């Protein structure tokens, strides 16, 4: 369905302050150091299933952690377990914001069970080709060669969605870290721009092999403590290494070839904007120290993302021009907008004919919010001699996803074209009936109140009375009046409140039996009791509700031979 009305475009999410400089009074005022959102530089990102291969390169005399007796402790097991636990977590969900190119379309890693896997691990005790000292450091080519050796030795397969991590260690006797330099030779673990780790790629078997160098964080003189000083898993060196590895792994997923997601003004990738800012997360029941990652959706460092909305849009035979912009308004069934998503800014590349694009944003709404429709608006920014842009939308898929990757709802629409947006009709409105408001959780009640008015015959002082309420699991009986309580005089009103455990929905409350019990003293006969009215209500966190509300003249007369009255739920409410 296409709306014919022209709408004003929604304002898109703003980038955080870009680095700016100003000359003030001759002094060069400093640049703002606030982190920017990541730019999509057009390259591919990793897709499921993403595999990590861990190579512990530990020649004789080199260990991973000098603080434990065997030099390893849980270092290897923790770095491996991380990949077994990472899938379908709100932490991994962060990467689903960043689609990459898949031919003329875009695709994005899905966060689901098995999204990430440990491809394998290997402890290599072969000697280093260099001393690993500052005078004779390992080089990047040594790391690449080690990756090749590991692949060959273990018959691993490389591919577009695999990363090979090489861990070097620390000299056991001296505590000296194994030093390494990058491919330029200008940056090392100990000189130039000192690093803790890096990720890169090299041509291999007609494709690329993606790899990461991971120094031993706790022993790196460049400063790699990852902001972690207390062990979450008994061994701080292991925790730090996982945090460091998470930085590089997320960067490799979102920027494997250095041409996908990074901020062009700083060179920062997803992990760099949050460098060495830790978070403790629980994944599959195991706790990890991870590094926070950058979320474009919130322009901040996060350790979880979601729920989210994923809009996949296919352009038809008329492109979305390079200087045009587009937004999507997420609207309730009645049309009220509750969130605006920038699909394309004016300075982003055109969406060519017959190309597919994915935009992901946080779905920042309470779970009760329905996605009733998506309104997409084209805005032309005409240059000289340009007329308004026209844009054919061929298909649209809207998915609302949970933080752990589950599809909460999905609506797929297509046409030829599905919609044509023009200068005079720039907005298309697309209904999403598959995303109705979720059924509100059934209210439950944990309190029941009886309001009973006695009629022209009292409830004697030595008598007792109970109310028995039918509930799932059996009747619950409450004492309205104990034998020791004072009598309920004629025409008197009595309110008694009791706890229901466990709390029950309104529909669970069945019939209610009110019973008189006479405790006759010497020369006493059975008591008779006139009940004029009974009002029963229940209460819970979401408020109160009527169970029954009955009255009569009297409503019931309880006697020794007929001591019980049965009242039915919902009567009189």
């Amino acid at each position, binding site marked *: 369905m296409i709306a014919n009305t022209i709408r004003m475009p929604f304002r898109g999410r703003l980038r955080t302050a870009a680095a700016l400089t100003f000359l003030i009074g001759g002094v060069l005022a*400093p640049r703002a150091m606030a982190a920017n959102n990541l730019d999509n530089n057009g390259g591919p990102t990793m897709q499921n299933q993403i595999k990590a291969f861990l190579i512990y390169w530990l020649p004789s005399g080199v260990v991973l952690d000098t603080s434990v007796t065997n030099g390893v402790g849980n270092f290897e097991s923790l770095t491996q377990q991380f990949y077994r636990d990472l899938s379908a977590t709100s932490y991994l969900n962060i990467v689903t914001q960043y689609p990459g190119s898949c031919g003329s379309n875009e695709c994005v890693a899905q966060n689901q069970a098995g999204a990430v896997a440990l491809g394998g691990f290997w402890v290599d005790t072969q000697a280093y080709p260099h001393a690993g000292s500052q005078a004779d450091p390992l080089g990047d080519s040594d790391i690449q060669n080690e990756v090749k050796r590991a692949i060959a030795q273990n018959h691993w397969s490389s591919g577009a969605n695999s990363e090979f991590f090489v861990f070097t260690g620390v000299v056991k006797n001296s505590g000296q870290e194994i030093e390494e330099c*990058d491919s330029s030779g200008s940056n090392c673990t100990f000189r*130039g721009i000192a690093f803790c780790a890096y990720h890169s790629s090299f041509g291999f078997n007609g494709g690329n092999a993606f790899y990461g160098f991971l120094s031993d964080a706790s022993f790196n003189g460049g400063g*790699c*403590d990852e902001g972690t000083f207390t062990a979450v898993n008994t061994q701080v060196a292991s925790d730090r290494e996982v945090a460091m590895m998470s930085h590089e792994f997320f*960067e490799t997923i979102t920027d494997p070839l250095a041409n996908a997601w990074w901020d062009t003004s700083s060179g920062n990738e997803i992990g760099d904007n949050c460098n060495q800012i830790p978070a403790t997360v629980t994944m599959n029941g195991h706790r990890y120290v991870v590094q926070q990652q950058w979320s474009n959706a919130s322009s901040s460092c996060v350790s979880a993302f979601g729920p989210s909305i994923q809009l996949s849009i296919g352009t038809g035979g008329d492109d979305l021009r390079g200087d045009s912009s587009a937004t999507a308004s997420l609207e309730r069934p009645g049309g009220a907008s509750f969130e605006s998503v920038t699909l394309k800014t004016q300075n982003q590349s055109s969406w060519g004919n017959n190309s597919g694009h994915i935009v992901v944003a946080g779905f920042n709404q309470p779970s009760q919010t329905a996605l009733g429709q998506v309104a997409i608006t084209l805005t032309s920014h005409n240059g000289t001699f340009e007329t308004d842009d026209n844009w054919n939308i061929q298909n649209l898929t809207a998915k609302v996803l949970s933080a752990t990757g589950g599809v909460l709802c999905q609506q797929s629409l297509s046409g030829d074209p599905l919609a044509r947006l023009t200068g005079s009709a720039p907005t298309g409105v697309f209904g999403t009936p598959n995303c109705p408001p979720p059924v509100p959780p059934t209210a439950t009640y944990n309190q029941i109140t009886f309001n009973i008015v006695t009629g022209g015959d009292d409830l004697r002082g030595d008598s007792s009375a109970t109310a028995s309420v039918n509930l799932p699991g059996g009747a619950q009986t409450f004492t309205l009046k104990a034998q020791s309580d004072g009598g309920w005089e004629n025409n008197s009103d009595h309110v008694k409140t009791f706890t229901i455990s466990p709390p029950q929905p309104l529909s669970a409350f069945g019939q209610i039996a009110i019973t008189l019990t006479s405790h006759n003293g010497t020369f006493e006969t059975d008591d008779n009791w006139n009940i004029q009215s009974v009002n029963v209500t229940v209460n819970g966190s979401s408020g109160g509700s009527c169970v029954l509300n009955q009255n009569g003249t009297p409503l019931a007369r309880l006697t020794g031979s007929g001591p019980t009255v049965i009242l039915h739920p919902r009567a009189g409410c």
Partner: protein
Amino acid sequence: MSLAKFSLTCALLGFVAAAPNMAAQPAVEFKDLAAHPVETPAINNMVSQGIMKPVGATEFAPDAAETLGEFVVSVHSMFNLGQPAKATEFGDVTAKSAIYAAVQAVTPYMGRQMLCFGCLLGKNLLPEQSISHAQVAMIMAQVLVAQKKLALPTAAETEAALANVADAGLIPPPARPYMAAALTGGIVTLQSGNKIALGMTHTRAEVAVIFDGAQKKFSLPQINQPR
């Protein structure tokens, strides 16, 4: 106190007040510049402005490697850089450090992540380490671009400028425009084999020539002049 000693003292303290026509006049005749006749005027110019510091009363140490810390102090002084709103904390340059203010002022122009693209950067700056060609080029280009003395080239201009640079393939994508700007701006001169030699270190004499050349080429004010 003799005039020479007074001038040297002032130079060491970084606030020498030489008249403009004294810029190339040595406040003191360094004894270790005999093998550097070409660089001597630049060295004298930088020392007289307090941009670079001698290592002794009559020694400049022209062949010693320039450290990152020295370079940062010089850039801070030469470009009169202000303090950023938000500090970048380095584990080895704390607020008590003599070079803390200079480091903070220059850090936004260091392009550390651009030069070490894909790296998880350490928390230490390593100011005692020798500065590389890549670092000098990046810092100078970033500051000059920020001051609008140097234009940042387009992607096409960048690749054209780097087309004949033998080691251009080692320059990370985000650093390429700045390396190209440094090259076309004369901050970087190609080494043998048409290489920038990214990891090669600069001597103090070389840095003096770079500063002196930039000051002249980009009409940067001498630091003793009113701004």
